[in-house]
């Protein structure tokens, strides 16, 4: 549900008044519904590399309306700029200006997607300059898009093809309504592995997933989203949150495990429950977390320690148990919830930001340990999300915070859940050790 202001400026009088006064006009975002079209119109694939031809051919098989040239004044669902073979900054001009001609034709909720390679591994300074230029280009372009349209980039490691399973998985994610609140972000595909699901609407069919902190808020929506995508759920939360947890478990037709994740045996108990009750364990979502905000000058050990223990130390302990378990070795997936606070910092959140920075460090360092079994570990860093927690922020501060991004609104818990569900799928197996921000391109800490 969009916030009240967003609802107001999207209908009738409110819409025209906001326009005349030049007030911000956040759009109702295009979110994923099973069975809905992947994009709201034809997809233009620009670029002249072999990869762009291959990608366009592959997308044709998804029964999309694929164009290699835009027809003026026809509403477009997406523009994909395939820039994998740029050799110098001058190479960017032609495809980028071709895209520019179509920007005004983008349908509401359309997508602009770049496909390129990382600058860090470029063979020459000129190639690196061209590749890095795409970064600045995309992030600026994303800020110019309107009506809920977003711009994101896929970075293909040098040995990864544009039509590798995870590259296609990422293309599908970014084109779809699943990425509604992901804007101005790059996602690196570093591995050729992964498989695209036989049924696009149930990519997690047959998987067993554990979600911590699932009794309410983002955790409950993660459970709902994984269930919608076909997974069998084990929902975990503190025994004291058991009533809400039971309601979620019954809604997603999974099992409730009342468990304090800071217990030494928490990881083992999750594994035991999943294996005994559901025969396997494929996915663990580390969502449980708390805030205990205080300026550092006023910080006390209880606030500091509990945040560190619950938000990051427990995840490390649980991962240790998971990595040691023979039941978590068949393409296992871990996704952690980080936070933009851990990237950009946030006044009053030194403890929280330390814990969330820790999550990102953990994810990057655990990636190689997961890769051996075809597994992966990634994090999602939410920005301002409309939850019970953020609804307690004082009104003026909250109103400012939720507008400070390119989409001029707070994200919904389901937006975080969608990104997690994607990273938990086998279509994302080639994405490992990454942090994906779900922040509507927050202006802070970009």
């Amino acid at each position, binding site marked *: 549900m969009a916030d009240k202001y967003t609802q107001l400026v999207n209908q009738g009088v409110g819409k025209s008044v906001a326009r005349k006064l030049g007030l911000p006009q956040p759009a109702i975002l295009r979110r994923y519904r099973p069975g809905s079209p992947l994009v709201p119109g034809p997809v233009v694939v620009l670029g002249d590399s072999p990869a762009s031809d291959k990608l366009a051919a592959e997308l044709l098989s998804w029964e999309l309306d694929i164009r290699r040239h835009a027809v003026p004044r026809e509403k477009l669902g997406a523009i994909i700029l395939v820039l994998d073979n740029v050799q110098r900054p001058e190479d960017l001009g032609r495809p980028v200006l071709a895209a520019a001609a179509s920007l005004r034709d983008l349908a509401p909720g359309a997508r602009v997607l770049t496909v390129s390679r990382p600058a860090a591994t470029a063979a020459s300074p000129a190639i690196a300059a061209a590749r890095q230029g795409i970064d600045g280009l995309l992030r600026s372009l994303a800020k110019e898009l309107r009506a809920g349209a977003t711009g994101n980039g896929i970075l293909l490691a040098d040995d990864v093809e544009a039509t590798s399973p995870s590259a296609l998985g990422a293309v599908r994610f970014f084109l779809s309504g699943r990425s509604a609140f992901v804007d101005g972000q790059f996602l690196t595909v570093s591995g050729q592995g992964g498989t695209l699901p036989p049924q696009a609407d149930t990519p997690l069919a047959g998987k067993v997933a554990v979600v911590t902190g699932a009794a309410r808020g983002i955790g409950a929506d993660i459970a709902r989203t994984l269930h919608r995508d076909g997974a069998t759920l084990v929902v975990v939360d503190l025994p004291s949150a058991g009533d809400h947890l039971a309601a979620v478990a019954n809604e997603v037709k999974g099992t409730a*495990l009342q468990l304090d994740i800071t217990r030494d045996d928490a990881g083992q108990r999750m594994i035991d429950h999943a294996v005994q009750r559901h025969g396997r364990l494929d996915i663990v979502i580390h969502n449980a977390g708390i805030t205990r905000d205080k300026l550092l000058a006023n910080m006390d050990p209880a606030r500091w320690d509990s945040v560190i223990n619950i938000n990051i130390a427990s995840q490390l302990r649980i991962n240790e148990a998971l990595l040691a378990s023979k039941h978590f070795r068949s393409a296992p997936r871990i996704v952690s919830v980080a936070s933009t606070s851990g990237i950009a910092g946030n006044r009053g959140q030194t403890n929280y930001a330390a814990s969330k920075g820790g999550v990102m460090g953990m994810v990057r360092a655990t990636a190689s340990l997961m890769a051996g079994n075809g597994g992966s570990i990634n994090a999602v860093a939410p920005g301002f999300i409309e939850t019970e927690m953020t609804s307690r922020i004082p009104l003026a501060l909250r109103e400012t915070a939720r507008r400070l991004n390119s989409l001029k609104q707070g994200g919904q818990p389901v937006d975080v859940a969608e990104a997690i569900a994607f990273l938990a799928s086998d279509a994302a197996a080639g994405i490992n050790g990454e942090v994906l921000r779900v922040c509507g391109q927050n202006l802070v800490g970009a």
Partner: protein
Amino acid sequence: MSSDGQSAPAPAGTPSNAAAAPAPRRAVIVGGNRIPFARAGGAYAKSSNQDMLTAALDGLIARFGLQDERLGEVAAGAVLKHSRDFNLTREAVLGSALSAETPAYDLQQACATGLETLVGLSNKIRLGQIDSAVAGGVDSASDAPVVVSEGLRDVILDLNRARKLPQRLQILSRLRPKDLAPLAPGTAEPRTGLSMGEHQALTTAQWKITREAQDELALNSHRNLAAAYESGFFDDLITPYRGLSRDGNLRADTSADKLASLKPVFGKNLGVGATMTAGNSTPLTDGASTVLLASDEWADARDLPKLAVVVDAEAAAVDFVHGKDGLLMAPVFAVPRLLARHGLTLADFDFIEIHEAFAATVLSTLAAWEDEDFGRTRLGLDGAFGKVDRARLNVNGSSLAAGHPFAATGGRIVASLAKLLHAKGSSEGRPARGLVSVCAAGGLGVVAILESA
């Protein structure tokens, strides 16, 4: 067999007919769920029996993934029950996440209601009539039915039958102000007019149970229950409800001194020193409990745990009306009969759960079993029935600490005991055995044997 009809049918150690008959299949306890128990007028003051039973049921469904499952049967009941709740259990099932095609029935046997649902349903499973079941119970002392006076009821019913206005006016004129006062439910025994506490006070005096012994039992109940919570024992037995995640009656910090400072409330007119206080008696309580039962096949097919087996049960009743036995002493007779049928003694049990209606009830029961004369004259044995090892008695606390929502107590005890037995059986590599004993109003008692599965 002695003439009073209460003695064991066969001496201990003799194999019974039941044991010799072809073994029916097993009824296993998969697990349980209850909501924390709240003191009357507390956290659940505005919750109905149906609300609480539904919540307990939904927590059980969530724990074991039973959404949309068509169970064989759900049976539960309440002691204090509104007439509108004629189909209480079925209504709770319809409000739960179970399949709407799950049949249900209500049962009522005073405080033994919860245990009796377990007995009945496990027998159905053993006989192959059903494969799965939920046994439960609920009670609200807060949301108790309040009824109108007999005078007003009479007038209303006659008015309903009257056809003409003069008739109606004439009927209405019979109303007196006192008829308008509502009647709260009584807790007194209908045939004696004595409350349960006063009845127990008679028994307490008869067995010379001291105040100190009662307070000590109450203190242990609180300490054991608090320790069980601390160890996480209830993490998979309880689902919070209405802001409560632990039993509201639990006083983890109570002490012998605090208990000793309370004034006696029952037995003040007996001529002997009154010993029963609010501290060593159970308070009026709200709550609900459920237990999931299944055949081995049903549990295995769903990869569900199997904690314990319901081995056998026995009901008994005493003639308290004429003062032959104490109101709450029926288990004293039920247990020897049940154990005799299986050739068991009290020493054969790893855990013994005796419902703490009052501390003195438990102590009177133990005293009767330890009494040589009672064993000979009333139980038809060669001497005393036996001694309960206190280290095996109510090890995780019982009703004095947890509270006692009448029909919910059986399910509380059974689920906790099943978990204890499973742990004991697993750690020792042998079957562990447990005894449940619940006394009830009307001189009733139901007892059961569980064994680790």
